[in-house]
């Protein structure tokens, strides 16, 4: 009897192998969609089937949401990419061989991320996360333009250093857990570590958390460890940007939070809260200012991802049931919205044949529907109602003000600065007299609409079961 979580992890890898041998990119694209649909189905099955805690796999209230999101966005992205990537062949940016490679890597990446999410073993999670990272490195360099290769190289070096530091942190966690849990696998198992946290050596925990914060923080894209993120988003294929912002950052943050749970279990250890608050605020405000000078629309939204990651880290740093709840909600909403935005950006790039903001004007005249969808997506990410991001930002800011009135000014300041830049760019792109070419967009708009609908629903109504999961996870996060 195989269990859903096994399917969720294994299916993509199998699909990857299959895709490696399938000739013809259309067939490959279809296979990719089918495989992702399968994984998504398995994810849903996982949601409804009972929770799992085995030596190597864990599925609890905390990660179930992220598995669901992961498989869902994986599916929608595959859908988008299937209708999008053909265009790349026509424009000659990709060869069929590369495209076959692309599809295989896509599945492998999804599988690795699912592995990282489901792993009950900190070593296994590390492996999964690093695998996903290295694959994305290759994907970023896919176009083989100088810029793409440079972005990939930068990503590669920074990520490798991050990997090493994270691994050292992992070793330290093992060392901390070893006395309590004995040698071997148990000392690397999430649920046991969490349970035994109070009996661990605080000093080692602190050291471990710092290394993990820097190591995984590099993947979360916290300033000043963010340098790889904008270029990687800008130079890679758009579907990959969507997956990067929507999923990989989340998975990295998920890892960080797991470790925070462990550290939170040991009162004697250094409180990670202030550190996370500072790093979060730095990323938030820094990214907000960086938005103003952007000329590449994908890089623009990459920086906005940094901004929102900063806000989440800030929220988790604040801690407490309300802020943690808001942080988790924000993670979910951000990954849905941001991947949706990248879908829209892909459409725009096809419509105008360029991703330079200067070349994009008057969309609301040439492509009214696309313009409306894009505007809605941007408003959603800016935390305006009726979208879910508004809910999370509402909770974060209000509860912060209620607890630390003066501290609340900083995130609000950052968000306002960021909103100023995004709104400016939005108005530049959708308003005014259209310039340049206005091609027909053949990429499917279903994924974008789907994501917008989900975010909209969340802004108006949060299903109680979701709320229950989040609240449970929030109290674990301390």
């Amino acid at each position, binding site marked *: 009897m195989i269990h859903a979580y096994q399917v969720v992890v294994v299916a993509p890898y199998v699909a990857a192998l299959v895709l490696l041998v399938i000739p013809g990119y259309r067939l490959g694209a279809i296979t990719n969609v089918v495989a992702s649909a399968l994984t998504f189905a398995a994810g849903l099955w996982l949601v409804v089937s009972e929770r799992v805690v085995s030596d190597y796999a864990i599925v609890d209230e905390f990660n179930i949401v992220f598995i669901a999101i992961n498989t869902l966005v994986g599916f929608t992205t595959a859908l988008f990419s299937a209708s999008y990537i053909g265009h790349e062949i026509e424009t000659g940016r990709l060869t069929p061989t590369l495209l076959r490679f692309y599809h295989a890597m896509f599945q492998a990446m999804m599988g690795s991320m699912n592995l990282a999410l489901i792993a009950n073993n900190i*070593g*296994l999670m590390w*492996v999964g996360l*690093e695998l996903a990272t*290295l694959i994305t490195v290759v994907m970023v360099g896919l176009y083989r333009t*100088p*810029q793409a*290769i*440079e*972005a990939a*190289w*930068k990503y*590669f070096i920074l990520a*490798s*250093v991050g*990997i*090493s*530091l994270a*691994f*050292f942190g992992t*070793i*330290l966690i*093992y*060392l*901390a857990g*070893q*006395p*309590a849990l004995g*040698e*071997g*696998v148990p*000392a*690397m198992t999430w649920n046991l570590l969490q349970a035994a946290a109070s009996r661990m*050596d605080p*000093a*080692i925990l602190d*050291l471990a958390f710092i290394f993990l914060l820097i190591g995984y923080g590099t993947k979360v894209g916290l300033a000043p460890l963010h340098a790889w993120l*904008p*270029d990687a988003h*800008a*130079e890679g294929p758009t579907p990959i940007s969507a997956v990067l912002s929507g999923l990989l950052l989340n998975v990295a943050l998920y890892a960080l939070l797991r470790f925070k749970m462990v550290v939170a279990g040991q009162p004697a250890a250094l409180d990670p809260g202030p550190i996370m608050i500072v790093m979060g605020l730095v990323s938030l405000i820094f990214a907000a200012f960086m938005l103003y*000078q*952007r*000329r*590449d629309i994908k*890089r623009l939204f990459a920086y906005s991802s940094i901004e929102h990651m900063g806000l989440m880290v800030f929220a988790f740093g604040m801690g407490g049931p309300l802020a943690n709840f808001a942080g988790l909600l924000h993670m979910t909403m951000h990954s849905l919205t941001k991947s949706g935005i990248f879908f829209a950006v892909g459409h725009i790039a096809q419509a105008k044949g360029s991703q330079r903001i200067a070349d994009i004007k008057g969309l609301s005249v040439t492509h009214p529907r696309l313009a409306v969808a894009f505007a809605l997506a941007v408003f959603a990410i800016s935390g305006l109602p009726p979208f879910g991001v508004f809910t999370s930002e509402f909770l974060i800011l209000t509860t912060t003000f209620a607890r630390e009135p003066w501290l609340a000014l900083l995130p609000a300041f950052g968000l306002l600065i960021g909103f100023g830049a995004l709104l400016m760019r939005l108005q530049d792109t959708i308003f005014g007299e259209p310039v340049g070419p206005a091609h027909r967009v053949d990429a499917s708009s279903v994924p974008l609409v789907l994501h917008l609908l989900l975010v909209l629903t969340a802004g108006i109504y949060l299903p109680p079961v979701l709320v229950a999961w989040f609240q449970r996870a929030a109290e674990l996060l301390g």
Partner: protein
Amino acid sequence: MNHAYEISHLLAGVMLVTSFALLYQQRVAAVLNTFAAQSIALALAVAWAAWSQDRPDLFITALIALTLKGIVIPVALHRTVARLGIHREVEKVVGVGVALMVGLALTGLAQALLFKVTHGTASHAREELALALSIILMGFLMMIVRRNAVTQIVGFMSMENGLILAATGARGMPLVVEVSVAFSVLIALFVFAVFVFRIRERFDTIDIEALDRMRGDRR
């Protein structure tokens, strides 16, 4: 079996010394030799751990360390260096003296951090851990105080030596072997990447400064 610790500490100490030597070296060739020495020391340390903790699988790690990092990569890099004709002085960002001072400070920091560790198995392993940590930090330092790609790769590899050391020092830690393999692959990719860029002649030198001339988003 107290001497087990002493021997492993001895080997770790040797590695630390080699790290300092790496910071000190002026010429690429010498850097590579020193690194080879460090890797061999690592191999010995791992082998010793494998024997003393009787975990035969660690011998694989030792073997990898010895062959790949002790011999193959240094030789390969020697070739490259010769081919690229950059075996003269390595351009440094800060002087050797400063680098060594910073290295000392980092070592002190590492000691101070692990001094707090009080109980559990960790406390036995803590000196070794401290040494590993300082090796890692100094590898990182080497990556940022040297300007050319080969020395940076070496820096990264000595960082990773420190990691393997720490991993083996942690008694009974699973996956060490797999991870060491993974890291070797990573390094292979590193070296490979440099070669690739060289072969495709996208970048006429492998000085990393040149690798990122065309940072995106210019006007």
